[in-house]
């Protein structure tokens, strides 16, 4: 394939220039000895290119690269020139041994291979240890070598991608010190750009994550995986390859196998020892980033059910994934509603996942086939929680209940119940009554909530904030509206309410505000107390009673 070769060689030249770009820049500002060094490098490189006698210079250059001692501060110019040297050698076929070659020829090839290996190891070391720019440069150089090898050494595919150099590169990328820049570079330039790189990244990742790793490493892996958010559809054409592709290898062009690899990678990560926060963040991205990659989403089931059973915020987050499985994959989750009911705890309304949860809860309870007892339990539980909820949560709960009352008319007894039975009525009149609702019952079908009333919401009609009180009042007015759109109520906050009341800046007040008509005699002190006979009963006496100013 001459065309391919020329193409790659031209690319090589270009990228070689690119690689030397920074070094030339550096040269411009460097001192004389640096320039000298560069010129020697250049000379050595030229000698290598001129004749085989110059091959020994490779060893010199490698020693100049000097990775063993100081991988933190590598001579990138040397690395670049070595890359050029090896690219040229690989392209020239000098690294392939033919069976017919002479013995000494074989020795040369073996020696060159060894040097090449040395160089590769040096690059990996640089990627692991050096500073950010060198890391990125080393990454680029390594990928060039990968490309050259794949292009010119037949049968190197397996060798390079799965077991050889790329594996080291991947490990280096993941484990690099301060490698954030390099990681983003790798993701942006290679993994997202080229289908084959991505494929093998997935493979490597699945392999890599099969053993327990530290949370930081996992974090990196998750980040890389998360970045690959374009799931190839079945119709996807795989054309964007980094290196020459073995045409016999069908796996690289099938969406299925791509997804399979991604799935393996994700599963490997999910099975690893995740920290709580990682678990949460994974759950958060579950629906959008993870599930699309899965050919068999049911494999996520274990993870999701485990997470759901953790309780608290993790459970809340697991809900959406679980719901996806229930909905799409017909997952049978016994006791789903009792579990859901148990999620309504004191922290729920104060958590930041509140709106997310309410959206889901709305979906779960939107079925009209749910038993009214169950719905009533949810209503009553929410009402209880509302008594200790911030205004922004009350504002959600009440329209939410309204919608339930509308959808399940039997539950409206919770708002309006007249006792028909004479004896019972007399008893209630005489003794009052207890709340029939059992808050400790965990089964939402057994709580007896439907026999109860939502006194809590009625109390909230006298909430201190007028808007909240007005919303709470909807349950005692005619139910003329079909349903409230929950979305309008979900994302309120204290800050938002303060801004709503105060505005960003002063606007003209429509009405002259009312001022208290009496100037109190005392605010902080016991002034003029004798006048009132020593008994402090004016406004604000409450504070003065408790506090000493």
């Amino acid at each position, binding site marked *: 394939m001459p065309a391919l070769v020329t193409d790659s060689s031209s690319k090589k030249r270009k990228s070689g220039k690119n690689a030397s770009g920074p070094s030339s820049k550096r040269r411009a500002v460097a001192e004389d000895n640096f320039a000298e060094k560069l010129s020697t490098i250049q000379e050595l490189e030229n000698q290598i290119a001129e004749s085989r006698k110059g091959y020994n210079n490779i060893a010199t250059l490698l020693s100049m690269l000097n990775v063993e001692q100081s991988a933190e501060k590598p001579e990138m110019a040397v690395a670049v020139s070595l890359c050029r040297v090896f690219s040229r050698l690989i392209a020239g076929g000098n690294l392939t041994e033919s069976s017919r070659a002479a013995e000494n020829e074989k020795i040369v090839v073996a020696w060159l291979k060894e040097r090449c290996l040395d160089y590769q190891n040096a690059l990996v070391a640089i990627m692991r240890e050096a500073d950010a720019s060198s890391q990125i440069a080393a990454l680029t150089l390594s990928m060039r070598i990968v490309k050259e090898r794949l292009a010119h050494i037949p049968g190197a595919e397996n060798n390079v991608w799965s077991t050889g150099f790329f594996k080291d590169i991947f490990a280096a990328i993941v484990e690099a010190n301060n490698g954030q820049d390099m990681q983003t570079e790798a993701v942006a330039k290679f993994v997202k750009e080229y289908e084959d790189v991505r494929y093998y990244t997935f493979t490597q990742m699945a392999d890599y994550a099969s053993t327990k790793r530290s949370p930081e490493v996992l974090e990196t892996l998750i980040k890389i995986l998360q970045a690959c958010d374009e799931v190839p559809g079945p119709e996807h054409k795989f054309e964007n390859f980094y290196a020459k592709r073995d045409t016999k290898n069908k796996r690289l062009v099938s969406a299925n196998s791509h997804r399979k690899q991604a799935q393996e990678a994700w599963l490997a990560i999910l099975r690893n020892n995740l920290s709580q926060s990682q678990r949460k963040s994974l759950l958060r991205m579950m629906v959008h980033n993870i599930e699309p990659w899965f050919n068999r989403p049911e494999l996520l089931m274990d993870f999701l059910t485990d997470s759901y059973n953790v309780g608290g915020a993790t459970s809340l987050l697991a809900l959406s994934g679980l719901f996806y499985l229930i909905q799409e994959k017909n997952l049978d989750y016994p006791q789903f509603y009792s579990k859901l009911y148990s999620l309504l705890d*004191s922290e729920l309304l104060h958590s930041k996942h509140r709106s997310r949860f309410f959206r889901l809860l709305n979906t779960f309870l939107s079925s009209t086939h749910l038993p009214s007892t169950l719905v009533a339990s949810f209503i009553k539980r929410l009402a*209880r929680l509302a*008594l*200790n909820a*911030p*205004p922004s949560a*009350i504002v959600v709960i009440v329209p939410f209940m309204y919608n339930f009352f509308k959808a399940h008319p039997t539950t409206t007894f*919770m*708002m*309006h*119940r*007249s006792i028909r039975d004479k004896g019972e009525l007399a008893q*209630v009149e005489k*003794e*009052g*009554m207890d*709340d029939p609702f059992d808050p400790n019952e965990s089964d939402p079908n057994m709580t007896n909530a439907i026999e109860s*009333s*939502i*006194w*809590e919401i009625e*109390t*909230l009609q*006298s*909430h*201190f904030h007028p808007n909240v009180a007005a919303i709470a009042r909807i*349950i*005692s007015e005619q*139910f003329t509206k079909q349903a409230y759109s929950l979305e309008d109520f979900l994302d309120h906050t*204290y*800050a938002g309410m*303060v*801004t709503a*009341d*105060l505005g960003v800046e*002063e606007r003209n*007040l429509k*009405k*002259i*505000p*009312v*001022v*208290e*008509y009496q*100037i*109190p005699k*005392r*605010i*902080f*002190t016991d*002034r*003029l107390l004798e006048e009132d006979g020593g008994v402090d009963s004016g*406004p*604000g006496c*409450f*504070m003065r009673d*408790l*506090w*000493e*100013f």
Partner: protein
Amino acid sequence: MPPSQLKQLKASLRENGVLGPQKSKKEKRQNAKTGVGAKNRNQREVALQAIRDRFNPFEIKTINKSSKFDVTTRDGNTTAGGGARPGVTKSLGEERRRATLLKEMNSRNKIGGLIDRRFGENDPTMTPEERAAERFARESQRKMRKESMFNLEDDDDEMQLTHMGQSLSFDGPNQDDFEAGDLDDAESDEEASRKRKRFPDGDETQDQDQDQEDFIDYGDEEQPGRKKTKAEVMKEVIAKSKFYKAERQQAKDDDEDLREALDKELPDLFEALRGIKPAAKETKPEAPKQDFSEMNPERAAMLEESQNSKDPEKEYDQRLRQMTFDQRSKPTDRTKTEEEKVEEEAERLKKLENDRLRRMRGEQLTDDEEDNMDQDEIPEDDESEIDDAMHFGLPTYPTETRPELGVEDEDDFIIDEDLVETDSNASLDMGDSDMEEEEGSSSDESDGPDGEDEHINGMTLPTEDSAAASTAVEVNKEANGKLAFTYPCPKDHESFLTITKNVPVEEIPTVIQRIRALHHPRLRPGNKDKLGRFAEVLVEHVSYMGNKTEQPPFAILENIIRHIHSLAKTHPLNVTIACRAQLREIGKERPLNLLPGDLILLTGLSTFFPTSDHFHTTATPAHLCLARYLGQCTTTSLADLASGTFAASLCLQYQKASKRYMPEFINYTLNALCNLAPTEPTVKFGAFPYRKSQESVQLVPSKKVTPRKLQFRDVTTSPSDPQAQEELKISLLTTLVSLLGSASDIWAEKSAFTEIFTPVRAVLQYLRQSLKGKVYAAAREPIQNTLDKIDSHLAQARLVRRPLFLHDHKPLAIKTAIPKFEENFNPDKHYDPDRERAESNRLKKEFKRERKGAMRELRKDASFVAREQLREKKERDSEYEKKYKRLVAEIQSQEGRAANEYERARGRR
């Protein structure tokens, strides 16, 4: 079967009285004489016409088909076309067209013409006689009106009608021709009347003339049965007018005299009104008064002038001017008795309380009501504070005020409008102008010694005179150190800080008071705005002072807050805006970390503004601010806990009156109690979210410490000494517990009391148990008390608990598909419930009708025009034809004649 046509005709003729019994001749004659006959004739004509119409079936349009059902339509009357008489309408239209269109047609392409403007010319109801009479009447009226410029009333012959150069007037030497002979001897009236009596019928024409004259004459003085001659009448008229004129002149003169006399008395009256003794009057010479009353006033005035050598008019003018500037003395209100005052005050308070309650329930006060309230609020405040103000007086009286200031009572800042009102306006004016005059000197004197470069905006102390002021200032300086008298009104907080830089904290109220006195709104028009800004500055200053490291004494803060409050009454907007700005700053910068200054401001705010209102522009955000703090703040230290406790107690104070529920309060207090508990609770007590304090604030129970009353400085500083810490903890605990007790009192009526307070009880029980026997009874006591209280409230709540009965309203009607039938449907009425649509339909219909009508008219006009043109053309043609025929006949006859002649001639030949 109806009777025959003939019989019907006869019957109807008889009915209308056309046919009747024959009248006797005498009757006929009498009828003719009285004119009844003519009237009868008219009536008969009308009746006959009606009968004719009735019996002419072709005149009336009838529906040819009787309707099968009784229907109602929108097309007006049910008998469509019934009774219409197309012939009549057609001829009417035709006539109208002839009157208008035809005229226009004929006058087309013609310019000019005459318009007859003679009176009554086109009025067909007038007979020619009436017309003439009316014209004559108008003519003479015009003459009588005397419009011409130089007309003197008695001139009668300014213009005369002449005929052939001779006058046509009635009273001139040339009398009417017909009477000339009669009047030769110049008979007296009586004779003439007698004469006329003798010949009642002879002087028909004269009689008529006389009638006409009567028409213009004054009927009131006409003696019945006696006729006057024209000359007499005119003479009488003239004499009368002359008499009237003289009389008018007389009346005018009388009036003048009277006025003159009054004018003279006026100065005395003024003096009497102003309460000045009429001493001046005595000095006036009495002599010239002798006989002026009889004299012509002008002459009298002239005389007086010469005598007094004074210009009375000038004096008069002066006095008049004085009078216009004088205030009218008004009757003063009756002084109210003590009981009345008390009653009024009680009434006012009751009204204000009612308003507050209504606002609490969120009912809207109507605007006018509110205005009213505002209006009577301000003056009544004056009333209530008037004694205060009088008590402490103006800061202008230096001897009184300075030394006592800030020592005796802080109320002296109430220097409201009354200060100015106690003095009369006149004197205020005087003082003001004086002050303006002395401005330069006095200000120099007052700040010169101080050495402060103060910018005084043309305003100094309203002192009585500069000398007194300067001495006062000196006295004051000695008494108060370096306190100046005059301060500029600060526009922002920085300038206020520079003003008060060198002022000790204790004197700040004095400074504020002086600024307020100096810039009292009454003193200068711009002062109201300035004070408004000053109020804003003060609000900022309260928060600033609260945040200072060494806290000022609360007496000072209280005083400033009270100052703000009294400023808020006059400048509610400014104070509101300032408070809202502070709240906004809190919300933006430190929502979860309230500073002590913020707490003080929030406390102060609860005194300016009614916190019980359903919605209040400032109180509601303040609530929200507190709630947000309580709901979201994290506890890291004891100081945090203390400020949280302060905020919680503030919440309860806010809700003291309106008793609204505040979830954050319960959450916070229970959380704080759990944190303070000696051991961390292992079970959850309720639905409040438990947040552990970042730094342990757990109480170490010991018998050494006793709870004390919390102090405000606990908010700012945490004690380092462990003993003091424990003391603070136990005090916080007891305070929180008693707060819960108060909360249970406030919210005892709530329907969910049980749900709210069951967790509270659990927490308190837990506390009681964990503190049992480990602390002093003084610490355990409040817990036990609160528990007892809550228990009793809970029992009560259980007793009054009933199932909710919220939807007891009238059930909504089910939507029905039955059409709505209207009883007594009236097709003329529109029943469209949509008003706009009904209106537009109506207009559309009207438009359509009008359009149709207009088109019909136009069409008829066109056909009329065509008909007329055709008629004209035919006329022209027939004329032409006639002419042609005539000519032809003429020629033929000539021809015939010629032929005959020819024949004859030929025959002759």
